[in-house]
């Protein structure tokens, strides 16, 4: 048989293309991306319009530490959750429908399948994250300028790297979400864990014992996102180190996900 079906020996590129077809053919992918931009840019506009009042009420010390770049990027706090949902869905939508069995029957090399999902999630999240962060900056600054508060330009020192860091941070959170999706296999569980990591732990960080504060230096939303500002935070003198540390920890989560994905019965 098989005479009229000539196949090239499939490689990683085929797996990646197959994953892309699956991702682009779901409406939820585009809804999530649309939601990301509408919500995050909406927050940017609201936060920028409130800048005038904040400036008027600010003390001298606060005016000293005024960071127009960081202010226009604050939408990352909500954006990371929506990007996370996208990362989770890349994996858990297949578990929810039972499709993972079909996928792994067609391509039993599991490391390759997960690697394709990780690469795809990274590419999509980096592009979406960078576009979003640049858009936030470019929309936020003129809005603040209209209210007569200090603003920044992309060519000011540290501004470009802060905006770029914003996009990379969001991509890293998407990868964390992929890892959680594999480990939990369920959208609800992975999402609850992600919310716990990026929102709950930072909110209650103060009550944890002091030895844990070393961990918070690299924690998402705390130290991990320090690179999104241009005014040096005395707690995080080298913010890219903090972001790098967070990425290392996420790489650890992904490594665990690869091991589990290889070994576990589907």
């Amino acid at each position, binding site marked *: 048989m098989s005479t009229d*079906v000539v196949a090239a020996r499939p490689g990683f590129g085929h797996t990646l293309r197959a994953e892309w077809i699956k991702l682009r053919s779901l409406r939820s992918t585009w809804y999530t991306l649309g939601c990301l931009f509408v919500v995050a840019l909406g927050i940017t506009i609201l936060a920028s319009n409130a800048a005038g009042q904040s400036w008027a009420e600010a003390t001298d010390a606060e005016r000293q530490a005024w960071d127009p770049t960081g202010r226009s990027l604050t939408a990352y706090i909500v954006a990371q959750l929506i990007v996370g949902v996208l990362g989770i869905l890349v994996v858990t939508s297949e578990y929810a429908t039972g499709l993972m069995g079909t996928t792994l029957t067609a391509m039993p090399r599991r490391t390759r399948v997960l690697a394709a999902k990780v690469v795809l999630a990274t590419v999509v999240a980096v592009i979406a994250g960078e576009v979003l962060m640049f858009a936030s900056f470019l929309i936020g600054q003129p809005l603040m300028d209209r209210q007569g508060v200090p603003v920044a330009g992309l060519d000011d020192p540290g501004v470009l790297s802060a905006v770029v860091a914003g996009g990379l941070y969001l991509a890293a959170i998407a990868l964390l979400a992929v890892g959680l999706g594999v480990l939990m296999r369920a959208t609800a569980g992975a999402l609850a864990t992600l919310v716990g990591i990026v929102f709950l732990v930072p909110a209650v960080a103060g009550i944890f014992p002091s030895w844990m504060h070393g961990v918070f230096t690299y924690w998402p939303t705390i130290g991990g996102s320090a690179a999104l500002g241009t005014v040096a935070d005395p707690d995080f003198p080298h913010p890219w180190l903090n972001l790098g540390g967070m990425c290392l920890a996420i790489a650890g989560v992904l490594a665990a996900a690869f091991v589990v994905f290889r*070994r576990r019965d589907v």
Partner: protein
Amino acid sequence: MIDVRGLTKRYGPETVVDDLSFTVEAGQVTGFLGPNGAGKSTTMRMIIGLAAPDRGSVTIGGRRYAELAVPLLEVGALLDAGAVHGSRTAYDHLLALAVSNGLPRRRVGEVLARTGLEGVARKRAGGFSLGMRQRLGIAATLLGDPRVLIFDEPVNGLDPEGIRWVRDLMRSLAAEGRAVLVSSHLMSEMAQTADHLIVIGRGRLIADTAVSELTRTGGEGTVLVRVTDPGDFAQRLVAAGAIVRDGLESSLVVSGMSAADIGKLAAYHGVALGELTPQRVSLEDAFMELTRDSIEYQGVAA
């Protein structure tokens, strides 16, 4: 084509598949039969590498599933027709699978045509009836024109037209020289589809036999006899060495003696026979006989 050797799978303390060995040959439909919970699906999942066996091995054409370079060219497997994303179109679902194995795009159109789904190719699978989902799942198995096909309960929930379609497809796939493994918990279904049967219960092999063989040996045949004075003739039958039970409407159910011998006995004693019918053992009965001890939860006979 499929060679299962000493396959064993445990989930906690429970042994779901227990030292199971059988082969599936090309050119015929092999029915994989057993009551619910017998370990059929688990065995099939181990054949295609979705679950790892605790002991034993499975090879397809001499190789482990994970070693197949282009799996869809060798094996098409449908374990769960519901395993499609409801908001993806039939076409995109199949396209992603084809692309993952480097198969040409035109194969998608070809399998859609063979399964009669061309009209709904651009529709989202979420709106499909169970029968259409089953067809979509079968279309996916045919993408690579494989030599081995594996279907888990393919007619479950189908209407009679769908059942006939699946049955005819299985027959034609086998006639094309492919190895077809089909699981079912319904003997009557397998009787009409399969050439060969592998019967398991509680994870163990109970029978590995041709269908024709099973009806012949699966329990002694009986003969239904009707005479005007059953009591008298029954005594003569017993005297001649037969075992006689009372049947419905004062008939006699005779075992241990062939219809021809019963006829001769009647002629010798001058008894007029109202009816003399050899009862074929149905596959259903043979199956019940085989699996009686291996049903997980047995209802109490009323």
